[in-house]
């Protein structure tokens, strides 16, 4: 019996002194102390996604072609909208032409359901797009770049902030606008903030470029298959 138990839980036999247990001090910033700022003070405006009943009433469908959904948020680095938006036909502009529904450039788009609560930075391509009802767009004061906020909120610390304020009574939790405004973002000291902000902004552009590269590669693959099948047909 004992042998069986050992084989099931081999970790139990490992000595605990290989790595000492972590203390809370290990998580605190070692180089300089950070101030935090409550989100409510740096958020300029908040825009909710469009409810499905409104969409049905306005556009005749619950999912118009130009709708940004949670699955379109790619959070690998800073957070971008990964869908190939160029596929949306120009004729569908009338679906999202209403100025009220437009998403601002450099806004941070946040999923209200989690975990994980996904965050991404909006770009100018989204001017003719709509947000689904589970997303929210926030615009910020000019001195904090959207890329930094999105990256922070996507990080483990940022996700803990979400969990701190979202009611955790079910596996999928929802955060509302008021709870979102309670989230704290660390402020950087003046001597490093420029470099850090620039790094995150560059990282955002880098992620967009990678995304574009992936799309072009996929198009190239399709083009090669088209060319080959065209040759075969002849």
């Amino acid at each position, binding site marked *: 019996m004992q042998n069986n138990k050992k084989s099931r839980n081999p970790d139990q036999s490992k000595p605990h002194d290989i790595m000492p247990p972590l203390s809370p001090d290990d998580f605190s910033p070692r180089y300089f102390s950070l101030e935090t700022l409550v989100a409510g003070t740096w958020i300029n405006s908040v825009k909710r996604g469009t409810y499905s009943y409104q969409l049905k009433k306005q556009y005749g469908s619950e999912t118009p072609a130009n709708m940004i959904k949670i699955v379109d948020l790619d959070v690998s680095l800073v957070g971008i909208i990964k869908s190939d938006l160029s596929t949306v036909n120009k004729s569908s502009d009338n679906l999202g032409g209403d100025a009220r529904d437009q998403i601002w450039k450099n806004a941070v788009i946040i999923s209200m359901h989690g975990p994980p609560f996904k965050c991404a930075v909006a770009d100018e391509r989204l001017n003719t797009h709509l947000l689904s009802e589970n997303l929210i767009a926030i615009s910020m004061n000019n001195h904090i770049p959207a890329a930094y906020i999105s990256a922070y909120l996507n990080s483990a610390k940022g996700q803990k902030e979400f969990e701190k304020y979202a009611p955790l009574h079910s596996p999928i939790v929802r955060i509302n606008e008021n709870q979102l405004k309670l989230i704290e973002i660390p402020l950087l000291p003046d001597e490093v903030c420029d470099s850090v902000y620039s790094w995150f902004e*560059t990282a955002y552009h880098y992620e967009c470029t990678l995304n574009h590269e992936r799309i072009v590669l996929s198009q*190239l693959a399709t083009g090669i298959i*088209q060319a080959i099948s065209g040759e075969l047909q002849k």
Partner: protein
Amino acid sequence: MTGLSEEWIKLIGKINRLLNLIELKDNERLEYFLYYLLLKKELSGQNLNSSVPGTISWRDILTATIDHSEDAGKKLDLAFSLLVEQKFKRVTEDFISPKFDSLPPDQTNKIINALSSLPADDNNLIGEIADFIIHESPSFTKKGGSISTPKYISQLIASLVVSSPDLNICDLNCSDGTTLIECASRSTNIVNHQALIFSGISQNKQDLTVCLLNLALHDIPLPNIYTWKKNGKLTDYKEELKTCNRIIGLYPPFFAAPVLRKHQKDSIIDVVNLLSPGGMGAIIVPARMLGGELDASARTTCVNNDTLEAIIRLPTPMFLGSGVGTYLITVKPEKTQPAKNKILFIDIAGFLENKKNTNLDTSDLEEIFKKYQHFAHGSPDQDGGLLDNFTCVVSTEIIKKSNYILTIHRYVQPPVDRIDIESCFWDLQETEKKRQNLENSLDIHLKKIIEKLKKRN
């Protein structure tokens, strides 16, 4: 979307809220709403002769509302029973007595007052309001087994079916009656002819009541009504369908009548056999019927007998609780000479996907109708529109060679956008350069951060 103005939508919302306060269930609320509309429509135009001396009109009910608030419900009950007796006697058993008197009098009075602002002489408006509330009602569109046919599909069926003035239509699943209403609006002579409806998929009497009320509110004479018998199939109604020259609807009635499923493999042949020589059937079927094993014999018979005319892929899944593809097929016992030994395929779902749209508009419907007309009458098709890419005429010989498989993707292959490899290549080169530059600047920023951190320490 509906053409109702904001003013009327507000009024509908107000009445709906008042009905909501009475604490009726969703489906009851819809029924009561339609009953109120029917009474308003019928009593505004003419007076009803009551068994006791005198008449009853909407004005009487309104007066009762203002003077003696308790009497309004009684008057409504009386008016309704008289209306059924004098005008809808044939369908009395299918109408559920609404018992207006049992509703709270203050809410009833408010509803009567709200309805009084509707113009008495505009029957189209009342029909439009009925359409609106049926299509907005959650009980009729999602719950309870009822399916409301999307309006553009009803319009499509009506445009294909209504080609001659003498129409004798049979709707195999009444649903909310939208398709029959569309057919009636396009035909000049349907009033003098018989129309049959079968109770809906769910065999639910409440659905049938909604359908009959909808027809009455659109000024369409009430048709003969049949309900599906237990273990019954379409051929059991041979006598009733004797004079019928158009059969439309969803057949076989899946999901709600499981006993009918065993007959489904011959369903299309049944429809063809029951039609008179000049007749036509427009039936909505699941995708499985065009390529599945179960229906292979029916497909073979239809193709060999040359009774299958057109196969249209619809964009909306219409079978409750499943996302299976839906097709509209038209069958004719005798096809026109130009269409003989040919089948028309139209992929509307692909067409709408390409257009990034979800509904067919009027111009699309016209284009589809023209395509069908060109095919049926053999006139040259010179449209050259987008729909051309999603349309194909296939000879029955090719279908026989394909082992009688009628799946639309075998025959309709819309051209894809050609991708220019060279421009993709240059785009990729530029993107790679840009990426390298960004990587360099990331390194520079990172070095700065590290330096500053070191200085600080």
